[in-house]
């Protein structure tokens, strides 16, 4: 059915894509490499959020909080306390995961819009913490002097090296997510998404699973945040506020809620869109809003699905399926 074959054909294709990915820094100039690094970092967070939103069927508007905790924890540990960056990154992931675990249970007691509000509020509270705990975070003036990641004597301190590091993490994250989706856990989660009551009657502990996905998404965000911190070597609370949380949700939806690989696309699209809009000068914000609306109206399932459907590769049943999904979602939202 779609594009190109199966089995060995697919393998060859994936191989070709990987070569293409590896070649990107050599194709454009250094500016594009730095853009690609940011896209990679954003993709990592987006994948985690995609797992969360796609599976629990709920919107999380506070993901930037975990991204920020990962960045600050890693940054503070390595810059202020001299901990090795890799260790700092792992500790940060642990801390973020722990935070998600603790807040997950109470937050998932809520549903639908209340959950959205809960996550939004959580994000705001964490942001306030970043700003106010300035003995540790440096407050709005930020934290500088964060050491770059290094293995042995080899430091990842140039854009070229960092590109490969970030995308290695990215691919790892994507493959892990893909595995989870296809595993027993994935099936359980889809059952929950289908009908919580039915899932429960089958013996699946719903809150347990939801919290687990929450923690997983938090770890993804944390690792991405740490990568960000060790890349820019200076962080302030500004990138970790509500605006970025909303941007992340947009990335997930644009890429397609049902698509893990769409996360790359969503992250790339939003970032590159900002670039493309520079041509519009002062009107860029207006055009951004307009584009967002138009894309969502014409391709509500996300760009990946929309483009492919447009190319005639979509299955007829998909339209049926999507309508049902919306209908069900409306009920579930209550």
């Amino acid at each position, binding site marked *: 059915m*779609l*594009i*190109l074959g199966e089995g060995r054909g*697919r393998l060859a*294709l994936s191989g*070709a*894509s990987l070569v*293409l*990915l590896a070649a*990107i820094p050599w194709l*454009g*100039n*250094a500016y*594009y490499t*730095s*853009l690609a690094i*940011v896209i990679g970092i954003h993709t990592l967070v987006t994948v985690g959020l995609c797992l969360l939103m*796609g599976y629990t069927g709920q919107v999380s508007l506070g993901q930037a909080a975990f991204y920020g905790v990962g960045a600050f924890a890693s940054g503070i540990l390595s810059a202020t306390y001299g901990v090795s960056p890799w260790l700092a990154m792992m500790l940060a992931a642990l801390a973020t995961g722990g935070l998600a675990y603790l807040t997950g249970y109470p937050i998932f007691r809520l549903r639908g819009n209340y959950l959205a509000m809960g996550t939004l509020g959580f994000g705001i509270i964490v942001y306030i913490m970043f700003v*106010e705990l300035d003995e540790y975070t440096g*407050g*709005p*003036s*930020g934290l*500088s002097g964060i050491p770059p990641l290094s293995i042995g004597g080899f430091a990842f301190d140039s854009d070229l090296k960092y590109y490969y590091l970030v995308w290695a993490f990215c691919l790892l994250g994507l493959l892990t997510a*893909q595995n989870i*989706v*296809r595993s027993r856990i*994935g099936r359980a989660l*889809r059952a929950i*998404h*289908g*009908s919580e009551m039915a899932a429960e009657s089958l013996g699946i502990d719903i809150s347990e699973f939801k919290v687990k996905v929450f923690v997983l998404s938090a770890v993804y965000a944390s690792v991405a945040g740490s990568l960000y911190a060790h890349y820019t*070597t*200076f962080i*302030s609370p500004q*990138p970790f506020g509500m605006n970025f949380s909303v941007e992340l949700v947009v990335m997930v939806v644009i890429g*397609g*809620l*049902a*698509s*893990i*690989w769409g996360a*790359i*696309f969503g992250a*790339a699209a939003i970032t*590159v869109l900002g*670039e*493309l809009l*520079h041509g519009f*000068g*002062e009107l*860029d*914000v207006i055009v951004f809003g307009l584009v967002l609306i138009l894309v969502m109206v014409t391709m509500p399932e996300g760009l990946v699905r929309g483009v*492919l459907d447009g190319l005639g590769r979509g299955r007829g049943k998909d339209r049926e*399926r999507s309508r*049902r*999904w919306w*209908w*069900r979602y409306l*009920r579930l939202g209550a």
Partner: protein
Amino acid sequence: MPTPARIPSFTSRRSPLLITAFLFLLLSSLAAGLVGCSAAGKVEPYKIGGLFAVTGFNSPLGTPEKETALMLEDQINKAGGINGRPIKLIIYDTESDETKAVNLAKKLIEQDQVLAIVGPSSTGESLALVDTVEKAQVPLLSCAASAQIVQPVRKWVFKTPQSDSLAVGEIYDYLKAKSLTKVALLTSSGGFGTTGKKALETAAAQAGVSIVASESFGDKDTDMTVQLTKIKGSDAQALIVWGTNPGPAIIAKNMKQLGMSLPVFQSHGIANRKFIELAGDAANGVIFPAGKLLVASSLPDSDPQKSVLTKYAADFQAKYNKNADTFGGHAYDAIMLLKKAIEKAGGDRAKIRDAIENTQGFVGIGGTFNFSAADHNGLGKGSFTMVKIVNGEWTKEQ
């Protein structure tokens, strides 16, 4: 009964990596295409980069900075450019976002090949760029206020605005002269407010001032009567407010509403017409340190800055039909400093940097600049003057 739903499948068999890589490439080449065509003119212009927060929460700073920069580009080119060569300003909007600021800086450096960068507008954005410009060895003239940007001194980073520590010094000197020793602070929780608060706290002991109350407000808050009520209940003899519009205007109004007669001092963040417009009657009586731009007309003719200030104010008014303000002034200073440096050093980044560092006695909007290897701000005590608002006008306060 809800129909059994089919969940969109995660196990699609498409070749996602291929699609995404291809589309990413497509999009980026599109971007390249739009940006690519740079001027292959007859005379190669001097390219200067500008990073201003034209949108986002720092836009009140970035907009006048960009406007001033464009105005100066025009003026310089009409006068024949620098040593006969025109200048070309390449300005990007950082959207008050640090990550974007870093990326755009890289773009200016790698893609547009600028000689130097003017901006960004805020402390956070500037600090984020430090590593990038140091590594790429490109001079940066920041238009942001915090002393942190040039302390510790970094080889390639300069800034044109006066430091908040200077403003604090002026206020404390004034308080000492009036024998007011107990102060209450009301500072914004944003970058400007927090650095101001730190400066106030650091300098307090030495100035013989004790801080008896310290409250904060958010930049987007709409009512500060609660904080003011608390301060009213303390034994403060004066109130120092540190923030940028509209917060301080709301505070002024709230104070009037609560009937507070405490002498109030504000920061240079309110050094524009907007404050008076917003606060109305409540603005009267407020004292604050300001760049001399605000009282340019009442300066004695012997003041070296007077002619530069009045010309800038008049030009800006003529071109944009609104008042010039000190933020635009920071961009003015940056660009004119750069102009002088390029005049001396030509199109070489390292030489331009050296020229800036050796600039002495440059009369600008923010003050008279004297740079050195240890001082990359170049401004000292005389750059601020105490101003009092009387009947909706700024008057020099002795």
